[in-house]
Protein backbone atom coordinates (compact mmCIF):
# COMPACT_ATOMS: atom_id res chain seq x y z
CA UNK A 1 0.00 0.00 0.00
CA UNK A 2 1.29 3.44 -0.80
CA UNK A 3 1.20 5.89 2.04
CA UNK A 4 1.03 9.65 1.60
CA UNK A 5 3.69 11.95 2.99
CA UNK A 6 2.63 13.85 6.13
CA UNK A 7 3.64 17.41 7.03
CA UNK A 8 3.35 19.58 10.13
CA UNK A 9 1.58 22.79 9.11
CA UNK A 10 0.87 24.44 12.46
CA UNK A 11 2.18 24.36 16.05
CA UNK A 12 1.08 25.82 19.39
CA UNK A 13 1.97 25.52 23.08
CA UNK A 14 1.00 26.90 26.51
CA UNK A 15 3.26 27.83 29.39
CA UNK A 16 4.12 24.69 31.34
CA UNK A 17 3.47 25.81 34.86
CA UNK A 18 0.43 25.90 37.13
CA UNK A 19 -2.57 26.76 34.96
CA UNK A 20 -5.84 27.75 36.61
CA UNK A 21 -7.98 26.86 33.59
CA UNK A 22 -10.24 23.88 32.88
CA UNK A 23 -8.47 20.93 31.25
CA UNK A 24 -10.42 21.39 27.99
CA UNK A 25 -9.16 24.98 27.70
CA UNK A 26 -5.56 23.87 28.30
CA UNK A 27 -6.03 21.57 25.29
CA UNK A 28 -7.85 24.19 23.20
CA UNK A 29 -5.51 27.16 23.70
CA UNK A 30 -2.47 25.65 21.92
CA UNK A 31 -4.88 24.40 19.23
CA UNK A 32 -5.98 27.99 18.58
CA UNK A 33 -2.32 29.04 18.34
CA UNK A 34 -1.62 26.20 15.91
CA UNK A 35 -4.57 27.17 13.68
CA UNK A 36 -3.30 30.77 13.64
CA UNK A 37 0.19 29.51 12.83
CA UNK A 38 -1.12 27.39 9.95
CA UNK A 39 -3.58 30.04 8.83
CA UNK A 40 -6.41 27.52 8.49
CA UNK A 41 -9.44 26.39 10.45
CA UNK A 42 -10.24 23.54 8.08
CA UNK A 43 -9.73 20.55 10.37
CA UNK A 44 -11.08 17.12 9.40
CA UNK A 45 -10.38 15.33 12.66
CA UNK A 46 -8.98 15.83 16.20
CA UNK A 47 -6.92 13.59 18.43
CA UNK A 48 -6.64 14.77 22.02
CA UNK A 49 -3.86 13.28 24.17
CA UNK A 50 -4.48 13.10 27.90
CA UNK A 51 -3.68 10.66 30.71
CA UNK A 52 -5.32 11.87 33.90
CA UNK A 53 -8.50 13.78 33.07
CA UNK A 54 -10.76 11.06 34.42
CA UNK A 55 -8.83 10.52 37.61
CA UNK A 56 -7.26 13.87 38.45
CA UNK A 57 -9.73 16.38 36.97
CA UNK A 58 -12.96 14.31 37.01
CA UNK A 59 -13.43 14.91 33.30
CA UNK A 60 -13.88 12.13 30.76
CA UNK A 61 -14.65 12.32 27.04
CA UNK A 62 -12.18 15.21 26.77
CA UNK A 63 -12.05 15.21 22.94
CA UNK A 64 -15.79 15.93 22.71
CA UNK A 65 -15.34 18.95 24.98
CA UNK A 66 -12.32 20.22 23.05
CA UNK A 67 -13.82 19.91 19.57
CA UNK A 68 -16.88 21.87 20.66
CA UNK A 69 -14.98 24.53 22.61
CA UNK A 70 -13.01 25.16 19.38
CA UNK A 71 -16.29 25.25 17.36
CA UNK A 72 -14.91 22.53 15.11
CA UNK A 73 -17.96 20.25 15.30
CA UNK A 74 -18.95 18.08 13.43
CA UNK A 75 -15.29 16.99 12.90
CA UNK A 76 -14.56 13.59 14.46
CA UNK A 77 -12.59 13.58 17.72
CA UNK A 78 -11.02 11.01 20.03
CA UNK A 79 -9.12 11.11 23.30
CA UNK A 80 -5.92 9.07 23.25
CA UNK A 81 -4.49 7.70 26.49
CA UNK A 82 -1.15 5.94 26.47
CA UNK A 83 0.28 7.01 29.81
CA UNK A 84 3.19 9.49 29.54
CA UNK A 85 3.45 8.54 25.83
CA UNK A 86 -0.12 9.70 25.11
CA UNK A 87 1.20 12.69 23.13
CA UNK A 88 3.49 10.61 20.93
CA UNK A 89 0.69 8.09 20.38
CA UNK A 90 -1.71 10.85 19.33
CA UNK A 91 0.84 12.24 16.83
CA UNK A 92 1.37 8.72 15.48
CA UNK A 93 -2.40 8.23 15.13
CA UNK A 94 -2.73 11.56 13.32
CA UNK A 95 0.09 10.49 11.01
CA UNK A 96 -1.79 7.28 10.19
CA UNK A 97 -4.98 9.21 9.45
CA UNK A 98 -3.27 11.52 6.94
CA UNK A 99 -0.86 8.94 5.49
CA UNK A 100 -3.71 6.53 4.81
CA UNK A 101 -5.67 9.15 2.90
CA UNK A 102 -8.60 9.02 5.35
CA UNK A 103 -8.15 12.70 6.29
CA UNK A 104 -6.27 15.66 4.77
CA UNK A 105 -5.86 17.82 7.88
CA UNK A 106 -5.71 16.47 11.44
CA UNK A 107 -5.29 18.37 14.69
CA UNK A 108 -3.30 16.64 17.44
CA UNK A 109 -3.53 18.47 20.75
CA UNK A 110 -2.57 17.30 24.24
CA UNK A 111 -3.14 18.59 27.73
CA UNK A 112 -2.69 17.71 31.36
CA UNK A 113 -3.71 19.48 34.54
CA UNK A 114 -1.85 17.63 37.27
CA UNK A 115 -1.42 20.46 39.75
CA UNK A 116 -5.08 20.37 40.64
CA UNK A 117 -3.81 17.79 43.18
CA UNK A 118 -0.67 17.91 45.36
CA UNK A 119 2.69 16.44 44.23
CA UNK A 120 2.33 13.17 46.17
CA UNK A 121 -1.12 12.54 44.74
CA UNK A 122 0.17 13.36 41.25
CA UNK A 123 3.06 10.88 41.70
CA UNK A 124 0.58 8.28 42.98
CA UNK A 125 -1.67 8.86 39.96
CA UNK A 126 1.27 8.24 37.58
CA UNK A 127 2.23 5.16 39.67
CA UNK A 128 -1.09 3.53 38.72
CA UNK A 129 0.51 2.64 35.40
CA UNK A 130 2.85 0.16 37.13
CA UNK A 131 1.81 -3.50 37.45
CA UNK A 132 -1.05 -3.57 40.00
CA UNK A 133 -0.10 -6.81 41.79
CA UNK A 134 3.60 -7.20 41.09
CA UNK A 135 4.66 -3.54 41.57
CA UNK A 136 2.02 -1.02 42.64
CA UNK A 137 0.95 -2.71 45.90
CA UNK A 138 4.51 -2.42 47.21
CA UNK A 139 4.54 1.37 46.92
CA UNK A 140 6.48 1.31 43.66
CA UNK A 141 6.42 4.69 41.89
CA UNK A 142 8.09 5.82 38.68
CA UNK A 143 10.94 7.52 40.60
CA UNK A 144 11.60 4.25 42.48
CA UNK A 145 11.76 2.22 39.24
CA UNK A 146 14.09 4.84 37.75
CA UNK A 147 16.24 4.71 40.91
CA UNK A 148 16.63 0.92 40.82
CA UNK A 149 17.49 1.14 37.13
CA UNK A 150 20.02 3.93 37.80
CA UNK A 151 21.84 1.85 40.43
CA UNK A 152 22.35 -0.97 37.91
CA UNK A 153 23.51 1.47 35.24
CA UNK A 154 26.00 3.05 37.63
CA UNK A 155 27.48 -0.32 38.57
CA UNK A 156 27.66 -1.61 35.01
CA UNK A 157 28.75 1.47 33.05
CA UNK A 158 30.34 3.84 35.56
CA UNK A 159 27.64 6.53 35.43
CA UNK A 160 27.91 8.66 38.59
CA UNK A 161 25.71 11.12 40.46
CA UNK A 162 27.85 13.82 38.84
CA UNK A 163 26.76 12.70 35.37
CA UNK A 164 23.14 12.84 36.47
CA UNK A 165 23.65 16.32 37.89
CA UNK A 166 25.25 17.39 34.57
CA UNK A 167 22.04 16.44 32.74
CA UNK A 168 19.95 18.34 35.31
CA UNK A 169 22.11 21.47 34.98
CA UNK A 170 22.23 21.30 31.17
CA UNK A 171 18.48 20.93 30.75
CA UNK A 172 17.23 23.17 33.52
CA UNK A 173 19.55 25.97 32.36
CA UNK A 174 18.49 25.41 28.72
CA UNK A 175 14.93 26.13 29.90
CA UNK A 176 16.04 29.70 30.72
CA UNK A 177 15.91 30.32 26.96
CA UNK A 178 12.40 28.87 26.63
CA UNK A 179 9.67 31.34 27.62
CA UNK A 180 7.10 28.50 27.90
CA UNK A 181 9.23 26.36 30.26
CA UNK A 182 8.09 25.47 33.77
CA UNK A 183 11.42 26.07 35.55
CA UNK A 184 13.24 29.38 35.19
CA UNK A 185 15.80 28.96 37.95
CA UNK A 186 19.50 28.66 37.12
CA UNK A 187 21.24 25.77 38.89
CA UNK A 188 24.87 24.65 39.14
CA UNK A 189 26.78 21.47 39.97
CA UNK A 190 28.13 23.36 42.98
CA UNK A 191 24.63 24.12 44.26
CA UNK A 192 23.06 20.70 43.74
CA UNK A 193 26.03 18.40 44.37
CA UNK A 194 29.24 19.90 45.75
CA UNK A 195 28.37 22.66 48.24
CA UNK A 196 27.68 22.01 51.96
CA UNK A 197 24.03 23.00 51.30
CA UNK A 198 23.65 20.56 48.40
CA UNK A 199 22.28 17.74 50.53
CA UNK A 200 19.57 20.09 51.82
CA UNK A 201 18.87 21.68 48.41
CA UNK A 202 18.89 18.36 46.63
CA UNK A 203 17.79 15.51 48.91
CA UNK A 204 17.27 11.92 47.79
CA UNK A 205 13.81 11.20 46.39
CA UNK A 206 14.63 7.56 45.69
CA UNK A 207 18.28 6.75 46.28
CA UNK A 208 20.45 7.27 44.15
CA UNK A 209 18.07 9.75 42.47
CA UNK A 210 17.82 13.20 43.97
CA UNK A 211 15.22 15.95 43.74
CA UNK A 212 16.96 17.63 40.78
CA UNK A 213 17.12 14.32 38.89
CA UNK A 214 13.33 14.29 38.58
CA UNK A 215 11.17 16.42 36.28
CA UNK A 216 8.60 18.72 37.90
CA UNK A 217 4.84 18.07 37.97
CA UNK A 218 3.38 20.49 35.43
CA UNK A 219 0.18 21.66 33.81
CA UNK A 220 0.30 22.45 30.11
CA UNK A 221 -0.82 21.82 26.57
CA UNK A 222 0.73 21.54 23.10
CA UNK A 223 -0.62 21.08 19.59
CA UNK A 224 0.56 20.16 16.10
CA UNK A 225 -1.57 20.17 12.96
CA UNK A 226 -0.73 17.47 10.42
CA UNK A 227 -1.67 17.58 6.75
CA UNK A 228 -1.13 16.10 3.32
CA UNK A 229 1.52 17.57 0.99
CA UNK A 230 -1.15 19.32 -1.06
CA UNK A 231 -2.54 21.13 2.00
CA UNK A 232 0.97 21.85 3.31
CA UNK A 233 2.00 23.55 0.05
CA UNK A 234 -1.19 25.61 0.01
CA UNK A 235 -0.72 26.77 3.61
CA UNK A 236 2.80 27.95 2.82
CA UNK A 237 4.55 27.53 6.18
CA UNK A 238 8.11 26.09 5.96
CA UNK A 239 7.79 22.45 4.89
CA UNK A 240 8.53 20.11 7.82
CA UNK A 241 7.80 16.49 7.09
CA UNK A 242 6.84 13.99 9.79
CA UNK A 243 9.12 11.50 8.13
CA UNK A 244 8.82 8.41 10.32
CA UNK A 245 6.94 6.98 13.30
CA UNK A 246 7.93 4.03 15.46
CA UNK A 247 6.41 2.39 18.50
CA UNK A 248 7.26 -0.64 20.60
CA UNK A 249 6.20 -2.18 23.92
CA UNK A 250 8.00 -4.17 26.61
CA UNK A 251 6.96 -6.20 29.68
CA UNK A 252 4.54 -4.43 32.02
CA UNK A 253 6.52 -5.40 35.14
CA UNK A 254 10.08 -4.06 34.88
CA UNK A 255 11.62 -7.04 36.76
CA UNK A 256 10.67 -9.42 33.91
CA UNK A 257 13.17 -7.92 31.45
CA UNK A 258 15.98 -10.21 30.48
CA UNK A 259 18.70 -7.57 30.76
CA UNK A 260 17.56 -5.03 33.36
CA UNK A 261 19.83 -2.31 31.90
CA UNK A 262 18.27 -2.52 28.42
CA UNK A 263 15.38 -0.34 27.29
CA UNK A 264 14.38 -2.53 24.36
CA UNK A 265 11.18 -0.67 23.51
CA UNK A 266 13.21 2.52 23.03
CA UNK A 267 15.70 0.72 20.80
CA UNK A 268 12.94 -0.84 18.68
CA UNK A 269 10.73 2.26 18.40
CA UNK A 270 13.71 4.42 17.39
CA UNK A 271 14.94 1.90 14.79
CA UNK A 272 11.43 1.78 13.28
CA UNK A 273 11.12 5.58 13.16
CA UNK A 274 14.48 5.83 11.37
CA UNK A 275 13.76 2.99 8.96
CA UNK A 276 10.36 4.37 7.90
CA UNK A 277 11.99 7.75 7.22
CA UNK A 278 15.01 6.36 5.40
CA UNK A 279 17.22 8.14 7.92
CA UNK A 280 19.89 7.07 10.40
CA UNK A 281 20.83 8.40 13.86
CA UNK A 282 23.87 10.08 12.24
CA UNK A 283 21.51 12.30 10.19
CA UNK A 284 19.92 13.86 13.30
CA UNK A 285 20.77 17.51 14.09
CA UNK A 286 18.51 18.03 17.13
CA UNK A 287 16.74 15.61 19.49
CA UNK A 288 14.15 15.81 22.23
CA UNK A 289 14.45 12.84 24.59
CA UNK A 290 12.18 11.86 27.48
CA UNK A 291 14.25 12.96 30.51
CA UNK A 292 11.55 12.42 33.16
CA UNK A 293 14.63 11.31 35.17
CA UNK A 294 18.14 12.45 34.30
CA UNK A 295 19.33 8.85 33.77
CA UNK A 296 16.78 8.44 30.96
CA UNK A 297 18.37 11.09 28.75
CA UNK A 298 21.70 9.27 28.97
CA UNK A 299 20.26 5.82 28.29
CA UNK A 300 17.87 6.93 25.52
CA UNK A 301 20.76 8.70 23.77
CA UNK A 302 22.34 5.23 23.53
CA UNK A 303 19.25 3.13 22.77
CA UNK A 304 18.15 5.53 20.01
CA UNK A 305 21.50 4.92 18.32
CA UNK A 306 23.27 8.26 18.83
CA UNK A 307 26.04 6.81 21.02
CA UNK A 308 27.25 3.25 21.75
CA UNK A 309 25.60 1.45 24.69
CA UNK A 310 27.21 2.53 27.95
CA UNK A 311 28.82 5.65 26.45
CA UNK A 312 26.02 8.23 26.62
CA UNK A 313 27.49 9.73 29.80
CA UNK A 314 30.86 10.14 28.05
CA UNK A 315 29.26 12.12 25.19
CA UNK A 316 27.57 14.24 27.85
CA UNK A 317 30.95 14.87 29.54
CA UNK A 318 32.41 15.98 26.20
CA UNK A 319 29.57 18.50 25.79
CA UNK A 320 28.29 16.86 22.63
CA UNK A 321 24.67 16.96 23.81
CA UNK A 322 24.61 20.65 24.78
CA UNK A 323 23.53 23.53 22.53
CA UNK A 324 26.52 24.06 20.19
CA UNK A 325 27.57 20.40 20.51
CA UNK A 326 27.49 17.66 17.89
CA UNK A 327 23.95 16.55 18.81
CA UNK A 328 22.09 19.02 21.03
CA UNK A 329 19.56 17.13 23.20
CA UNK A 330 16.64 18.84 24.96
CA UNK A 331 17.50 22.44 24.07
CA UNK A 332 13.87 23.20 25.01
CA UNK A 333 14.76 22.27 28.60
CA UNK A 334 13.36 18.76 28.17
CA UNK A 335 10.89 17.34 30.65
CA UNK A 336 13.32 18.39 33.37
CA UNK A 337 13.23 22.10 32.55
CA UNK A 338 10.22 22.64 30.29
CA UNK A 339 8.08 20.44 32.54
CA UNK A 340 6.08 17.24 32.12
CA UNK A 341 2.32 17.57 31.76
CA UNK A 342 2.18 13.88 30.91
CA UNK A 343 -0.38 13.79 28.06
CA UNK A 344 1.07 16.90 26.40
CA UNK A 345 4.76 15.96 26.55
CA UNK A 346 5.06 13.97 23.31
CA UNK A 347 3.41 16.82 21.41
CA UNK A 348 5.58 19.45 23.11
CA UNK A 349 8.61 17.49 21.89
CA UNK A 350 7.25 17.60 18.32
CA UNK A 351 6.52 21.33 18.74
CA UNK A 352 10.16 21.99 19.66
CA UNK A 353 11.54 19.99 16.74
CA UNK A 354 9.29 21.76 14.20
CA UNK A 355 10.22 25.12 15.75
CA UNK A 356 13.91 24.20 15.36
CA UNK A 357 13.63 22.85 11.80
CA UNK A 358 11.79 25.99 10.72
CA UNK A 359 14.73 28.00 12.10
CA UNK A 360 12.41 29.99 14.38
CA UNK A 361 13.88 29.00 17.77
CA UNK A 362 15.72 32.27 18.48
CA UNK A 363 18.40 32.10 21.16
CA UNK A 364 18.16 28.33 21.48
CA UNK A 365 18.25 27.68 17.71
CA UNK A 366 20.39 24.72 16.68
CA UNK A 367 22.32 25.97 13.66
CA UNK A 368 21.28 24.55 10.27
CA UNK A 369 19.01 21.92 11.83
CA UNK A 370 17.37 19.85 9.09
CA UNK A 371 16.58 16.51 10.75
CA UNK A 372 14.96 16.16 14.20
CA UNK A 373 14.01 13.27 16.46
CA UNK A 374 11.75 12.72 19.48
CA UNK A 375 11.47 9.89 22.02
CA UNK A 376 8.34 9.76 24.21
CA UNK A 377 8.68 7.13 26.95
CA UNK A 378 5.55 5.60 28.48
CA UNK A 379 5.44 3.57 31.68
CA UNK A 380 8.95 2.68 32.72
CA UNK A 381 9.82 1.95 29.11
CA UNK A 382 6.92 -0.41 28.45
CA UNK A 383 5.37 1.71 25.67
CA UNK A 384 7.56 4.04 23.65
CA UNK A 385 6.86 6.26 20.61
CA UNK A 386 9.64 7.79 18.49
CA UNK A 387 9.24 10.29 15.66
CA UNK A 388 11.58 11.62 12.97
CA UNK A 389 11.15 14.99 11.24
CA UNK A 390 12.79 16.42 8.14
CA UNK A 391 12.95 19.94 6.75
CA UNK A 392 12.25 20.13 3.02
CA UNK A 393 12.90 23.00 0.64
Amino acid at each position, binding site marked *: MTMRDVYVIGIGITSFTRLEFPLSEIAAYPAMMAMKDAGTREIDHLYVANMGGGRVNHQTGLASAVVDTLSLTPAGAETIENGPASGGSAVKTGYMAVASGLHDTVMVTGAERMREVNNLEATDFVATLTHPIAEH*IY*GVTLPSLAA*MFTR*LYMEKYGVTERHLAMVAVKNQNAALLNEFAHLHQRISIEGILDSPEAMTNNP*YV*AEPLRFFDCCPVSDGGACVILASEEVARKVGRPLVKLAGVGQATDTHAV*HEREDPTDLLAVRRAAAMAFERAGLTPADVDVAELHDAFTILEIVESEECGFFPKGEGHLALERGETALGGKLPINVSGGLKGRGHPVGATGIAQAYEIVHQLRGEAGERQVKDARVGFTCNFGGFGNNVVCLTFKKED
Partner: protein
Amino acid sequence: MPREIYAYKCRKCGHVHYPYRMVCKNCGKNEHNEFEPVPLSKSGSLLTFTTLYSLPPDFEVPSLGLAIVALDGGITVTGQHRIDEPETGMAVRVEVEVVRRDGYDEHYGMVFYKA
Protein backbone atom coordinates in the same frame (compact mmCIF):
# COMPACT_ATOMS: atom_id res chain seq x y z
CA MET B 1 -1.69 -21.02 57.42
CA PRO B 2 1.37 -19.33 55.92
CA ARG B 3 0.59 -17.20 52.90
CA GLU B 4 2.19 -17.91 49.56
CA ILE B 5 2.82 -15.88 46.43
CA TYR B 6 2.56 -18.00 43.31
CA ALA B 7 4.22 -18.02 39.93
CA TYR B 8 2.37 -19.60 37.01
CA LYS B 9 3.76 -22.54 35.07
CA CYS B 10 2.52 -23.23 31.53
CA ARG B 11 1.07 -26.76 31.42
CA LYS B 12 2.24 -27.14 27.83
CA CYS B 13 5.86 -25.93 27.75
CA GLY B 14 6.69 -25.51 31.45
CA HIS B 15 7.65 -21.82 31.18
CA VAL B 16 7.16 -20.09 34.55
CA HIS B 17 5.70 -16.57 34.64
CA TYR B 18 5.58 -13.97 37.38
CA PRO B 19 3.33 -12.09 37.38
CA TYR B 20 0.41 -13.98 35.89
CA ARG B 21 -0.42 -13.53 32.23
CA MET B 22 -3.27 -15.10 30.27
CA VAL B 23 -1.28 -16.41 27.31
CA CYS B 24 2.11 -18.13 27.64
CA LYS B 25 4.98 -15.79 26.71
CA ASN B 26 7.09 -18.72 25.55
CA CYS B 27 4.82 -21.03 23.51
CA GLY B 28 1.77 -18.82 22.94
CA LYS B 29 -0.62 -21.50 24.24
CA ASN B 30 -3.93 -19.71 24.04
CA GLU B 31 -6.29 -21.60 26.34
CA HIS B 32 -7.95 -20.55 29.59
CA ASN B 33 -6.61 -22.05 32.85
CA GLU B 34 -3.57 -23.58 31.26
CA PHE B 35 -1.26 -22.45 34.06
CA GLU B 36 -0.38 -24.34 37.22
CA PRO B 37 0.33 -22.18 40.31
CA VAL B 38 3.76 -22.94 41.78
CA PRO B 39 5.02 -21.34 45.03
CA LEU B 40 7.86 -18.86 44.54
CA SER B 41 11.27 -19.65 46.00
CA LYS B 42 11.96 -18.19 49.46
CA SER B 43 15.56 -17.21 48.76
CA GLY B 44 17.51 -15.27 46.20
CA SER B 45 19.94 -12.43 45.66
CA LEU B 46 19.48 -8.67 45.56
CA LEU B 47 19.63 -7.43 42.00
CA THR B 48 18.95 -3.74 42.70
CA PHE B 49 17.27 -1.63 45.37
CA THR B 50 16.29 1.86 46.46
CA THR B 51 15.07 3.75 49.50
CA LEU B 52 12.05 5.80 48.53
CA TYR B 53 11.53 9.04 50.48
CA SER B 54 8.60 10.44 48.50
CA LEU B 55 5.86 7.98 49.33
CA PRO B 56 2.36 7.32 48.06
CA PRO B 57 -0.25 8.66 50.54
CA ASP B 58 -1.17 5.14 51.86
CA PHE B 59 2.26 4.72 53.44
CA GLU B 60 2.61 6.37 56.83
CA VAL B 61 6.38 5.85 57.18
CA PRO B 62 9.25 8.28 56.43
CA SER B 63 10.90 5.96 53.90
CA LEU B 64 10.40 2.62 52.22
CA GLY B 65 12.90 0.05 50.96
CA LEU B 66 12.11 -1.39 47.53
CA ALA B 67 14.07 -4.01 45.65
CA ILE B 68 14.23 -6.36 42.70
CA VAL B 69 15.42 -9.85 43.65
CA ALA B 70 16.55 -12.74 41.46
CA LEU B 71 14.99 -15.74 43.21
CA ASP B 72 16.77 -19.07 43.25
CA GLY B 73 15.30 -21.07 40.39
CA GLY B 74 15.16 -18.25 37.89
CA ILE B 75 12.21 -15.94 38.56
CA THR B 76 12.81 -12.24 39.25
CA VAL B 77 10.42 -10.29 41.49
CA THR B 78 9.82 -6.82 42.90
CA GLY B 79 9.10 -6.30 46.62
CA GLN B 80 9.94 -4.35 49.75
CA HIS B 81 13.24 -4.77 51.57
CA ARG B 82 14.00 -4.33 55.26
CA ILE B 83 17.78 -4.46 55.13
CA ASP B 84 19.92 -1.86 56.92
CA GLU B 85 22.87 -1.80 54.58
CA PRO B 86 21.77 -3.40 51.31
CA GLU B 87 24.30 -4.30 48.64
CA THR B 88 23.70 -5.68 45.17
CA GLY B 89 24.38 -9.41 45.00
CA MET B 90 23.62 -9.94 48.69
CA ALA B 91 21.73 -13.14 49.62
CA VAL B 92 18.20 -12.54 50.88
CA ARG B 93 15.29 -14.55 52.29
CA VAL B 94 11.70 -13.79 51.41
CA GLU B 95 8.78 -13.44 53.84
CA VAL B 96 5.16 -12.87 52.83
CA GLU B 97 3.77 -10.01 54.91
CA VAL B 98 1.35 -7.08 54.74
CA VAL B 99 2.98 -4.57 52.37
CA ARG B 100 0.20 -2.01 51.98
CA ARG B 101 -2.93 -0.98 53.84
CA ASP B 102 -5.63 1.10 52.27
CA GLY B 103 -8.58 1.67 54.56
CA TYR B 104 -9.43 -1.75 56.02
CA ASP B 105 -7.81 -3.65 53.14
CA GLU B 106 -4.51 -5.37 53.79
CA HIS B 107 -2.40 -6.38 50.80
CA TYR B 108 0.13 -9.18 51.21
CA GLY B 109 3.37 -9.32 49.25
CA MET B 110 7.06 -10.16 49.38
CA VAL B 111 9.43 -8.60 51.92
CA PHE B 112 13.17 -9.24 51.63
CA TYR B 113 15.50 -9.71 54.62
CA LYS B 114 19.21 -10.35 54.87
CA ALA B 115 19.67 -14.14 54.65
